[in-house]
C-alpha cells in the first residue's frame, strides 16, 4: 500500500521527562498498515521554519476496544526546532503525518530468540516490535541503555510483554554503569559457549556508534543483525537522495543506498561503518 498523508489530530501528549514525550496521533490508515521499524514523516509547525518534515519511528500502534487500529504514537526526544514543537504539541492540534514508510524489521519465529538493543531514543521502534515478537511467541530481550535511570522509559510495558530487560545507564543510576554493548557482548559470548550454533536475531537502534558496535559484535558471533539507520531526510520517499547509507556495492565498492527506501532497517553486515 502506498503511504498516506494524514492531518492527524494529537489525541494526547504525555511528557516522560524534560526532553522526552509520547504523542498519540489519530491516523487509522497509517496504523492499519504500519509494521515495526517503519517510520512516518511529521511536519511540526506551520510556515516555512522549520521547513521539512522529520522522520519518526512508529512507536506504538493504537487500537480501540475491538482491536481496530486507530492511530499511532511516537516517542519524541527534543533536540532541535521540530522536536521542540512536538514536545510542546497540544491535544487537538493537527500534524501532517505521512506513512508508513521504509523497510520494517524482518521478524523471526520461535525457536529463534530476539535481542533488541536500544540506546536512548533508539527505543522508539521496539515497543511495536516487542509486541509483534511477543505475539509470535518469540523469546525476546531488550538491552536498553540511557544516560540515567530517569531516561529509561516504558520498562513495565516491556515487562508486561514478557520481554526480559538488560539495562545500563551512563551514570550508573540504574542497571549496569556504562554502555549497553558491554552486557550485549557478554551475553553473546556466554551464549556462544552454552548454545553454539543458535545465535539470536539482533535488532539495534540508537546512536550510530552503538549500532556499529552491535553490528560488529553480531558479525563476530555469527548472529544476524538488523539496525535502524538514522539519516537526515528530505523527503522520506526516495526523491532527494539525501538519506544515503554507504553499503557494500556489487563489485566490493562503496555504494550509496537511500535509507528511506532500502531502510531505515538494514542488515548490519552490509553497512560500511566508518
Amino acid at each position: 500500500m502506498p503511504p498516506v498523508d494524514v492531518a492527524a489530530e494529537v489525541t494526547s501528549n504525555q511528557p516522560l521527562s524534560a526532553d522526552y514525550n509520547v504523542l498519540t496521533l489519530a491516523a487509522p490508515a497509517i496504523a492499519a498498515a504500519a509494521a515495526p521499524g517503519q517510520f512516518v514523516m511529521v511536519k511540526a509547525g506551520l510556515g516555512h521554519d522549520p521547513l521539512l518534515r522529520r522522520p519518526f519511528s512508529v512507536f506504538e500502534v493504537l487500537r480501540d476496544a475491538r482491536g481496530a487500529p486507530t492511530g499511532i504514537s511516537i516517542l519524541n526526544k527534543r533536540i532541535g526546532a521540530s522536536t521542540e514543537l512536538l514536545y510542546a504539541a497540544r491535544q487537538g492540534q493537527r500534524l501532517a503525518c505521512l506513512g508508513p514508510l521504509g523497510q520494517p524489521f524482518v521478524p523471526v519465529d520461535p525457536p529463534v530468540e530476539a535481542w533488541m538493543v536500544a540506546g536512548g531514543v533508539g527505543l522508539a521502534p521496539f515497543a511495536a516490535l516487542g509486541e509483534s515478537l511477543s505475539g509470535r511467541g518469540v523469546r525476546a530481550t531488550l538491552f536498553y541503555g540511557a544516560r540515567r535511570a530517569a531516561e529509561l522509559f516504558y520498562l513495565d510495558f516491556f515487562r508486561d510483554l514478557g520481554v526480559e530487560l538488560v539495562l545500563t545507564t551512563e551514570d550508573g543510576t540504574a542497571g549496569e554503569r556504562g554502555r549497553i554493548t558491554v552486557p550485549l557482548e557478554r551475553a553473546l559470548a556466554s551464549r556462544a559457549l552454552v548454545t553454539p550454533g543458535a545465535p539470536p536475531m539482533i535488532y539495534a537502534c540508537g546512536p550510530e556508534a552503538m549500532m556499529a558496535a552491535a553490528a560488529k559484535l553480531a558479525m563476530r558471533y555469527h548472529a544476524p543483525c538488523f539496525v535502524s539507520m538514522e539519516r537526515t531526510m528530505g523527503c522520506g520517499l526516495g526523491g532527494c537522495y539525501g538519506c544515503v547509507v554507504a553499503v557494500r556495492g556489487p563489485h566490493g565498492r562503496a555504494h550509496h543506498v537511500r535509507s528511506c527506501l532500502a531502510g531505515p532497517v538494514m542488515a548490519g553486515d552490509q553497512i560500511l561503518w566508518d
Partner: protein
Amino acid sequence: MDLSVRIGTLTLQNPLIAASGCFGYGVEYADLVDLASLGGVAVKGLFLEEREGHPAPRIVETPAGMLNAIGLQGIGVRRFIAEKLPELRARQATVIVNICGTTLDEYVELARILSDADGVAALELNISCPNIKEGGITFGCSLNGTFDVVSAVRKVTRLPVVPKLTPNVTDVSSFARAAEEAGADAVSLVNTFLAMAIDVETRRPKLSNIVGGLSGPAIRPIAVRMVYECRQAITIPIIGMGGIADARDAIEFMIAGASAVQVGTASFVDPFIWPKLLDGIRSYMERHHVARVADLVGTVDTGPAAPERSGA
C-alpha cells in the same frame, strides 16, 4: 481554461514540472502522484556513467530553506533508459532529462543518446550544479562556456534544449542571452545558491562536501527577481523555480516572466502538492478572468505609482 505551455516544439499540458533532483527518476512517485497529470517531470541529473555522489550528511535544513550536496549520485544514462524510461513512458509522463557532463563532448554524447531514446520530451542542460566541480558549473559560470555547450547540444538534437542557469553570477540575464543566442528553446532558472552551514559545537561543516546548494522558500525573492530580469533580456520561454510552495508562489513566478515553473523542495514537504497547485492556479485564473495561463506570463505591472523610484 487553457493551461498549456509551449517550450520550443513541445507543448506541456500545464505549467507544473517536478524539479530535477527532487523527484528521483519519477518512478519513485508513480504510486503517489499521477505522473500524466504533471506538465513535466524533470528527472535527476544524469551523467553518462554511474556515480555514487557525496557521503552523508548530504542535506541540512536552514531557515526556510535547505542545503543539499548530493553530488549527483546517479545510475548513468544507459541504465536510466533501460530501467526507468519504460515505466515513465507507460505512466505517460512528459519526461525532461537533466544532463550533466564534465566536458562538452559528454553533453553532446548524452544528448545524442537521449535523442534516440523513446519517450524523452526535452533536455535540460545542468550547467549549474554548485556541488561538484565537474557538474558543468564551469560552463554555467562563463558566458562562452554557456554559449558553447548549448550550441553544441543544439546541433545534435531535435529535442527542445533548456539550459539550467546558476544564480551564482553577477548578471544572470547575460547568461540567458548567451543561451538564447546559442539556440536554446528555453532557459530554466534558478539552480541552487552556493551556501554553507557549520556546526558550532564541532566546528565542522554540516555537509560532508563542505558547501552545498540552498533551495526552498528562502531563495524565492531572489529567484523571482532573476526571472524578471531575464524576461526583459530574452524572448524564449523561461522555466522559473526557487522556493515555490503554493499556487500563489507559482503565479508570482509566471507574472514575473516564467512560462512554466518547477517545484522541488516544497514537494519534499508535501508530496501531494501537485493537484493543490493546479487547483490554486485554476481558481486564480477564474477569479481574475484569465483564459490562458500564457496570458499571465510577464504581466507584472511596474507602471506608474512610484514617482521617486529612481531614488530622489
